[in-house]
C-alpha cells in the first residue's frame, strides 16, 4: 500500500510548511530571544514562498489534490487536501502574521519580560503550524489536535504580557475556549459513532446515506448544533463573545492583531470546511441550525457595534468592532447560499487585513499620547504620528465600507447575496444598513478625534523614520487593503472556484 505515484515536488510543500513551523518552534525554545526572532521571520518568509508556489500550482491545475501523510492512504492514515482556497488562505495568513509580528515588535520588547520574549516566538511558530494544519487537513481528528495547539498557544500569547488584566483575560479565554473545544470534541465523537469515520469525505458520504434513509435524525441535528456552537464560541460569535474585549484589548499588540485576524478566522474556516466537506452543504442548510447562526450573526452586527460606541478605550473599541465583523461572516454563512458563502470568505480576508491594520496603527497613536488609550488623550495624535494616523484612517474607512477599500467590496458582496435570497433579504439589508451607520459613528468619531488639532501639545511628535519597520508594515497593510478593494474581481473568482473545489 503506497501513496499515489508521481507527485510533483510542489505538492509536498503543504506538509513541509506545517513541519517547518513546528521545527522552528521546537528549536527556538532552546535558543536566546534574538535567534528565535530571526528564525521566526525566516520561517514566515519561507512559508510565504512555499504557500505561494502551492497556490500557483493549484490555480494552474484547476483541481484539488490529496496528500497522504505517510504510507497508508486515508481512511486508515492521515491526509491533507489542498485546493485553491486552502493554499490561498495559507498564503494570506502567513503574510498577515509576518506583518503583525513585525509591526508589534517594538511593543513586545517593552511589554514582555526579557527572558520570555523567546517563548513568544515559540508560541507564534506553533500557532502558525496549527493554523496551516487546520487549513489543510482532511481529517476531523487531526483538526481537533491542532485546535488544541491553537487554543493553548493563544492563551500564551494573551498572558505573556503579565499584568492583572491579561491574566484575567487569559483565564476567561481559556475557560470559554475549552468549552468550545469540548463541544467540538463531543460532536466529533457523535459523528464517529454515527458514521464510523474520521475522514471528512467519508463522513460526508455516510451522512448522505443516513439522511437518505431518514435514520438517526435527532443525534445528527444535535451534532451539527454542538459543532457549530463550539466553533462559534471559539470564534467569538455574538452571545459567546464575553472573552473577546479583554483578550484583544490588553494583550500585547501583535497578539491582539494575530488573535483577531487569524485565530478566530482559523476556526471559522474549519466551520466552512465542516459545512462543505463533513456535513454537506445541503444537509447543513436543511438542518435549520443555519438560521440560528444567521440570527446570532445579525445580532452580533448590531450589538457589537453598540458596545463599541459605548467604549472609551480605543483598543477595546476595535475589539468590540471584531464582534460585529464576525457577525457579518456568520450572517454570510447563515444565508445558506453559495453567494453568501463567497461573501463570507471574502469578508474573512478583508477583516483579517483591516483589523490587524487597525490594532497596529492604534498602538502608534496611543504611544504618542503618553500610552493612554482614552479618547480625550488621543486628541490630535494623528498629527503627532502621521504614519499611524493615515493608516488608522484607512482602516476605519475600510471598516465603514468606503469604496476603494476592502470593506466596501465585502459589504457589496453581502448586499448582492441578500438580493438573491428571497426569505432573508429584508432583515439582511436593514441590519447591514444599521450596522454600517453604527460602524461609521464609532470609527469616524475616532478619526475626527485624532485629527482635531490641540493647542498645547505635551506629547512628543514622532516622524516615520524613527521606526522604519513599523512604517513599512503600515504601508504594506494599507497597500493590501487597497489591493483587496480594487482588484476584488479576480479574488472573488478565485474564491468561487476554490469553493467549487472545496465541496
Amino acid at each position, binding site marked *: 500500500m503506497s501513496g499515489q505515484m508521481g507527485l510533483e515536488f510542489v505538492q509536498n510543500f503543504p506538509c513541509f510548511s506545517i513541519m517547518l513551523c513546528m521545527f522552528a518552534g521546537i528549536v527556538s525554545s532552546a535558543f536566546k530571544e534574538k535567534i528565535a526572532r530571526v528564525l521566526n521571520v525566516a520561517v514566515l518568509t519561507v512559508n510565504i514562498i512555499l504557500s505561494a508556489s502551492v497556490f500557483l500550482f493549484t490555480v494552474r491545475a484547476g483541481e484539488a489534490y490529496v496528500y497522504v501523510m505517510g504510507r497508508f492512504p486515508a481512511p486508515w492514515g492521515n491526509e491533507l487536501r489542498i485546493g485553491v482556497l486552502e493554499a490561498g488562505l495559507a498564503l494570506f495568513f502567513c503574510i498577515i502574521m509576518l506583518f503583525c509580528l513585525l509591526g508589534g515588535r517594538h511593543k513586545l520588547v517593552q511589554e514582555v519580560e526579557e*527572558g520570555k520574549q523567546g517563548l513568544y516566538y515559540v508560541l507564534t511558530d506553533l500557532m502558525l503550524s496549527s493554523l496551516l494544519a487546520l487549513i489543510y487537513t482532511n481529517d476531523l481528528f487531526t483538526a481537533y489536535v491542532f485546535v488544541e495547539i491553537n487554543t493553548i498557544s493563544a492563551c500564551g500569547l494573551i498572558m505573556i504580557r503579565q499584568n492583572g488584566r491579561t491574566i484575567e483575560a487569559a483565564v476567561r479565554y481559556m475557560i470559554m475556549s475549552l468549552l468550545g473545544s469540548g463541544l467540538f470534541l463531543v460532536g466529533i465523537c457523535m459523528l464517529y459513532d454515527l458514521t464510523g469515520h474520521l475522514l471528512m469525505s467519508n463522513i460526508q458520504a455516510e451522512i448522505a446515506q443516513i439522511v437518505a434513509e431518514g435514520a438517526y435524525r435527532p443525534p445528527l441535528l444535535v451534532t451539527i448544533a454542538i459543532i457549530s456552537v463550539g466553533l462559534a464560541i471559539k470564534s467569538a460569535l455574538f452571545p459567546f463573545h464575553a472573552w473577546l474585549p479583554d483578550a484583544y484589548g490588553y494583550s500585547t499588540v501583535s497578539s491582539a492583531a494575530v488573535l483577531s485576524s487569524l485565530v478566530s478566522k482559523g476556526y471559522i474556516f474549519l466551520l466552512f470546511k465542516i459545512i462543505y466537506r463533513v456535513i454537506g452543504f445541503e444537509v447543513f442548510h436543511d438542518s435549520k441550525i443555519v438560521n440560528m447562526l444567521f440570527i446570532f450573526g445579525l445580532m452580533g452586527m448590531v450589538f457589537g457595534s453598540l458596545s463599541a460606541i459605548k467604549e472609551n478605550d480605543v483598543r477595546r473599541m476595535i475589539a468590540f468592532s471584531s464582534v460585529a465583523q464576525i457577525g457579518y461572516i456568520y450572517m454570510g454563512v447563515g444565508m445558506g447560499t453559495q453567494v453568501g458563502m463567497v461573501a463570507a470568505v471574502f469578508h474573512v480576508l478583508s477583516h483579517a487585513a483591516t483589523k490587524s491594520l487597525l490594532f497596529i496603527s492604534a498602538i502608534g497613536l496611543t504611544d504618542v499620547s503618553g500610552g493612554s488609550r482614552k479618547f480625550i488623550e488621543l486628541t490630535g495624535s494623528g498629527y503627532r504620528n502621521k504614519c499611524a494616523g493615515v493608516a488608522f484612517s484607512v482602516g476605519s474607512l475600510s471598516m465603514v465600507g468606503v469604496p476603494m477599500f476592502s470593506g466596501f467590496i465585502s459589504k457589496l458582496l453581502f448586499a448582492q447575496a441578500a438580493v438573491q435570497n428571497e426569505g432573508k433579504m429584508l432583515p439582511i439589508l436593514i441590519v447591514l444598513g444599521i450596522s454600517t451607520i453604527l460602524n461609521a459613528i464609532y470609527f469616524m468619531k475616532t478619526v475626527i478625534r485624532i485629527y482635531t488639532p490641540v493647542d498645547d501639545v505635551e506629547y512628543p511628535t514622532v516622524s516615520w523614520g524613527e521606526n522604519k519597520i513599523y512604517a513599512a508594515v503600515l504601508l504594506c497593510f494599507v497597500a493590501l487593503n487597497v489591493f483587496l478593494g480594487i482588484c476584488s474581481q479576480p479574488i472573488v473568482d478565485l474564491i468561487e472556484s476554490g469553493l467549487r473545489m472545496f465541496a
Partner: protein
Amino acid sequence: MSRMKSEEEYRKTKAFHFFRWLSGEKDPYIGNLEMKPQEEYIGEETSIRDRMRESQTVMDKVYNTKHNRWLLLFRRFYRIMAVIFCILLAGLLLLTVSYLPPTGNASNPDNNEVASRYIESGMQETGAVNIVTGMILTYRAFDTFGETNVLFIATCCVMIMLMVEDAELKKQEVMNDRRFEPKNDAILQGTAMILVPIIFIFGIYIILNGHLSPGGGFSGGATIGAGMILYASAFSFKKTQRFFDEKIYKIAKVSALCVYGLIGIYYYVTGANGIENHIPLGIPGHIVSAGIIFPINICVGIEVACTMYAFYALFRRGGL
C-alpha cells in the same frame, strides 16, 4: 516468670528491640531525624486587611449590591438560569446518546473497513504486536506528532506563567523551597532510595515494550517523570540538578522532538511520494522491530518525562 537470660543480656537481643518497637515505647526516629512540625501560613495583618478592603471596594464600587437592586436581581437570575441551562444541556446530551447506535452491536457503523484493517493486517503492516501503538504511531503518526507538541506548548505556557527570571527572586525561591516541610525526611529518602530505580527501570521497560505490550511513550514517560518527582522531593533539587538541570532538560526535550519530527517528515514524504521506505519493520515480537514505532516511542517518552518533571519544578519553585 522464668528467664534464661538476665535483664541486661535480654536488652541486647533483637527480640527486645522488636517488642519495644511494637509497644511504641521508643520512637527510633526521635533524635536521629530533623523534625519540623508543619506550620500554618499566617499572613501579615496589614496585607490581610488590604485584601479585605480591596474586596470590599470591589463589592461596593463595581457591583454595589446594596443599592443596585437590579444587579442583585440579575445575579440571582443569572445563577438560576445557569443551573437550569446546565441541566437542560446535560439532559439534551443524554437524550441524544439514547438515539445513538447501541454499544457493542456488530452492525454498528464504526465496525467498518477501517477497524477491520487495523485489526486484521495491523501487525503485518506496522510490525507492532500492540495494535493500538501501531495505530497511533504508524497509521496516524501525524496526529500523534501534534499531540506531542501539545505537551510541548503546554510547558511553554507554564514557563511564561511561572518561570522566575529575576536573579534575586530566583535565589529567594530556592531558599524558600523547604519552608513548609522538613529537610531530609528519612522515611521518604529510604523509600525513594528503593523505589526510584525500580520506577525508572519500569518506565524504561514500558517505553521499550510499547509495540509489544500495553504501554508506550506516553505512559512510560509519565512513569519516569513520576520517579523523577519522587527523587526531587526526597533529595531536594540540588541533587536532582546533578543529572537533570535546565540545560539538560532543554537538550533532551529539543532533541527528542526534533528526532521525532525528522522521522515523521521522512515517513510522510516517502509515503506520499511512493518512495521506498528504508526503515525495516523487523520481525513482530522482537524488541527492535516495528519500524518507526520504536524510536518514536523513545522520543515521546523523553518528552513526556521532561514535561511531567518540568511542571512539578515550575509549580514548586519557578525554575528547573
